[in-house]
């Protein structure tokens, strides 16, 4: 009789994560095509239209990259927190809270120099994200409360708070049907670089490099990896795992908060429910699919930004925008399946 034994490969291909992503993306495209065929749409037409309207011109390409900014920043935050083997499912809430903190500072301060003011507002967004994850982080390191559930539930709380604010104290009387806060002054809009591309994308590049440095090159990153890997090793090395976890979570939350601030200053220009359309959740996929690598997050985030733009434009021909969400999620499932074949091997042994 033949028996199958699964064992871990001793040698794992360096580019395994990249190949897995490609395979996952192919699987997702196939599944997306099947769904489109069921809805009696021609997948080739739909996908070519998506491609054309997401990267076909300077304008559409800059739309896609603008969309990628929150995905990349929130994804980087998730990756930094994952260095200590913790999960941040609360990026969605942190994005909103970043925007709320920005608006709070904007209402209560005034600076003549608009560049300084923009810097202050961006910083308040970052701090807002950190504040948002503060309670989950503190309860995690002090008492060991499951951070997955607390960060996730924070999303619902912050979203509720946003709706409360834009229907109450911050409600713009000029905005009749759509509840939202008042617009910020045009002087603090983030300037564009080329076409519609926001300078937020340059900030995004900068923070990708910062995250890469923190995670892979700095002493702090090294200590985070030890703290996340083995408690005993951390103790012997004199590293406080709790302290590292706490700081990592505050930084990671800040990245997502910054995403909310950039979204407000470059896209919505006011606090509304449109600050994030599930970016915090998509960012989880982006981070997980790249194995938490900052440079990978930058690339996959850009691709998923284009997918999101493509998904929103094909609504005009009667295709649901959810198709791009489904493609993103199935890409990760496909990549997980592919990962298996890179990490394990199946041996057939004769059983005598």
């Amino acid at each position, binding site marked *: 009789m033949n028996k199958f034994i*699964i064992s*871990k490969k001793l040698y794992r291909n360096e580019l395994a994560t990249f190949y897995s992503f490609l395979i996952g993306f192919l699987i997702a495209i196939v599944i997306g095509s099947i769904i489109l065929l069921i809805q009696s749409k021609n997948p080739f037409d739909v996908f070519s239209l998506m491609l054309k309207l997401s990267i076909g011109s300077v304008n559409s390409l800059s739309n896609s990259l603008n969309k990628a900014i929150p995905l990349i920043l929130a994804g980087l935050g998730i990756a930094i927190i994952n260095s200590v083997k913790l999960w941040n499912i609360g990026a969605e809430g942190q994005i909103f809270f970043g925007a709320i903190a920005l608006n709070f500072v904007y209402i209560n301060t005034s600076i003549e120099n608009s560049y300084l003011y923009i810097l202050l507002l961006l910083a308040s967004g970052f701090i807002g994200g950190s504040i948002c994850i503060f309670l989950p982080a503190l309860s995690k390191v002090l008492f060991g409360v499951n951070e997955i559930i607390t960060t996730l539930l924070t999303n619902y709380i912050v979203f509720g708070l946003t709706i409360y604010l834009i229907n109450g104290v911050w409600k713009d009387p000029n905005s009749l049907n759509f509840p939202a806060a008042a617009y910020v002054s045009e002087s603090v809009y983030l300037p564009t670089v080329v076409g519609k591309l926001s300078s937020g994308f340059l900030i995004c590049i900068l923070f990708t490099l910062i995250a890469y440095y923190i995670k892979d090159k700095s002493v702090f990153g090294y200590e985070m990896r030890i703290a996340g890997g083995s408690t005993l090793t951390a103790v012997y090395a004199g590293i406080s795992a709790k302290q590292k976890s706490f700081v990592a979570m505050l930084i990671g939350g800040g990245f997502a908060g910054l995403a909310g601030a950039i979204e407000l200053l470059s896209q919505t220009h006011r606090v509304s429910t449109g600050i994030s359309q599930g970016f915090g959740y998509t960012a989880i996929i982006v981070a997980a699919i790249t194995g938490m690598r900052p440079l990978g997050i930058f690339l996959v985030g850009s691709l998923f930004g284009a997918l999101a733009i493509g998904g929103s434009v094909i609504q005009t021909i009667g295709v649901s925008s959810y198709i791009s969400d489904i493609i993103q999620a199935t890409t990760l499932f496909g990549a997980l399946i592919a990962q298996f074949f890179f990490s394990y091997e199946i041996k057939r042994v004769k059983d005598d």
Partner: protein
Amino acid sequence: MKLKELKMIDVQFLGLINATLQAATLLFIAALGELIAEKSGVLNLGVEGMISIGAVSGFITAINTENLFLSILVGIVSASLFSSIHAFVTVILKQDQTVSGLILTILGLSLSSLIGKKYVGKKLNTKLEGVFDIENPSNILEIILGQNIIFYIAIILMIVTAFVLKRTMFGRRIEAIGEDLKSADSMGLKIGKTQFIATCVGGAFAGLSGVYLTLSYVPYWTDGMTSGRGWIALALVIFGGWKPYRTAFGALLFGFLEALGPRLQTYGFEMSPYIVKITPYVITIIVLILLTIFKNGDTGAPKNIGIPFFRENR
């Protein structure tokens, strides 16, 4: 006059009890399913997505066939099939349970939005009626008797699950696998098979919870209508210390708090409706923190939760 006032308070109170039971049923069934999966060592963060899939598929079947029994069945089976994705990826392919579960939620929510798009705003002609026909219930017993069939199924499931986990070979095997994989393996238990089944049973429960949502709790379908209940169910499992009866108690408590929120105003508390909406989530976090402090971090979780199993080369 006085009697009439008293009557009003009584009706309000009974309404609160009724809403508590309904909210608790919804949370409890999903939590019980997750409990079974976690007992076997499989953490499934996809509860929210599975509830959503069960809710939408049950609702669509109900609209098209008006056959409620069939709708319940379709909801259960589709959510269970959906959860088998997680079982396949984590049990057979041994990938990270956290990642897979999260994506199951994201995929479940977007997939159900896609499927349910044409059904948003449609009204159900048939609704799950109470098992006993009681008009204008006047006491708590009548409120309980007036609940629909899924409420009773939930009670039966609670008793059966507690019995199976504690008193049957199958239940003891699940627990052995969840607590100590290596020993379970050397005892010759079929780890993969047991975990796969436990995960799919968990999915089926979540599906039933979803059907309850769209056929009884709020009889219509909109995007994102699960509104975090799957995550509260996950917190409930921790609250219940992985024990069915204690989880049921927790569900009643959480259900009561969820039902109390919108009624606070009638009891004389002035609160913005937007703030009322977030109270269940705030309370869940507070309870979770207090519970973990109280238990000193040891919540009684199965030891092997979240750890994929494979035999080393032999």
